[in-house]
């Protein structure tokens, strides 16, 4: 199934569009506990304001989690080979992130479909929070 999908792909095709619900403060507490990053920027409004933000901000790694989640909604995780991401702008509690994955390169060699895709996370105002590239290899 995936084989015929990959064979029919062209450069510029959007593989995934995943919109996450707005990030809640509870989610940031959960992410702090899960990840071990207890920087108060993410859980204490007062600390965040002292650092120059309007309120708590999301861990960059939470956005990274959204990016990889988007990729694995499209194909089994074991086909994900590489991902490189640059964090561009801070994400705040209340922001709703949309991740898109778009085909940039496609090669089919020896029953292996290799795709290099651009990946991007934007908020509800289309501000780019993070972007980069993803490489996947799909065996046929």
């Amino acid at each position, binding site marked *: 199934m995936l084989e015929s999908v990959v064979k029919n792909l062209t450069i510029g095709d959007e593989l995934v569009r995943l919109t*996450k*619900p707005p990030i809640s403060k509870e*989610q940031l507490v*959960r*992410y702090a*506990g*899960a*990840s*071990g*990053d207890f*920087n108060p920027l993410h859980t204490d409004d007062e600390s965040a304001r002292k*650092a120059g933000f309007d309120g708590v901000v999301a861990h*960059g*790694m*939470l956005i*990274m*989690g*959204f990016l*990889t*989640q988007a*990729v*694995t*909604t499209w194909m*089994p*995780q*074991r086909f*994900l*080979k*590489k*991902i*490189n*991401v*640059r*964090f561009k702008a801070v994400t705040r509690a209340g922001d709703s992130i949309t991740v898109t994955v778009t085909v940039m390169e496609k090669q089919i060699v020896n029953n292996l479909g290799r795709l290099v895709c651009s990946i991007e996370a934007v908020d509800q105002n289309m501000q780019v929070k993070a972007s*980069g590239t993803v490489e996947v290899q799909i065996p046929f």
Partner: protein
Amino acid sequence: MADRGMIGKTFEFTWPVERGKISELVAAIGDPDPIYRDPAEARQEGYPNIVAPPTFSTVAVLWTGVLFKAFEELKIPLNRILHAEQSYEYYDPILGGDTLQGVLEVKSITERQGKAGTMHYVMLETVYNNQYDHKVLKENMLIVERM
């Protein structure tokens, strides 16, 4: 300020891949995929056990304290750190019940002039082997120290 003498310094650590920790992470991200929670579902997808999600390895460098130890020895205050870039190379799945053996290395420290002044970019690379001495993942974390 980032200590250039630290380039090449390594930090070794081990980390058990626990089912509960995986559940916590995917619940925080909001990823409902059952391969992270249900061994039967994971087996149906071709994995021997539940799978650790793609950003799970980074939990290890934080929870073991290795990352913070590196920042301390690099003499970078935590409140001046920005996470600029993150990348992963995946070689083999990381499964519930595995034990990760990690080596974090300070790969490079470079200086760039930005609008706000001098910025130190520190590249930290961590390579993970599992309990079979099999290389499973490499991650690179680019940290900016705002001066």
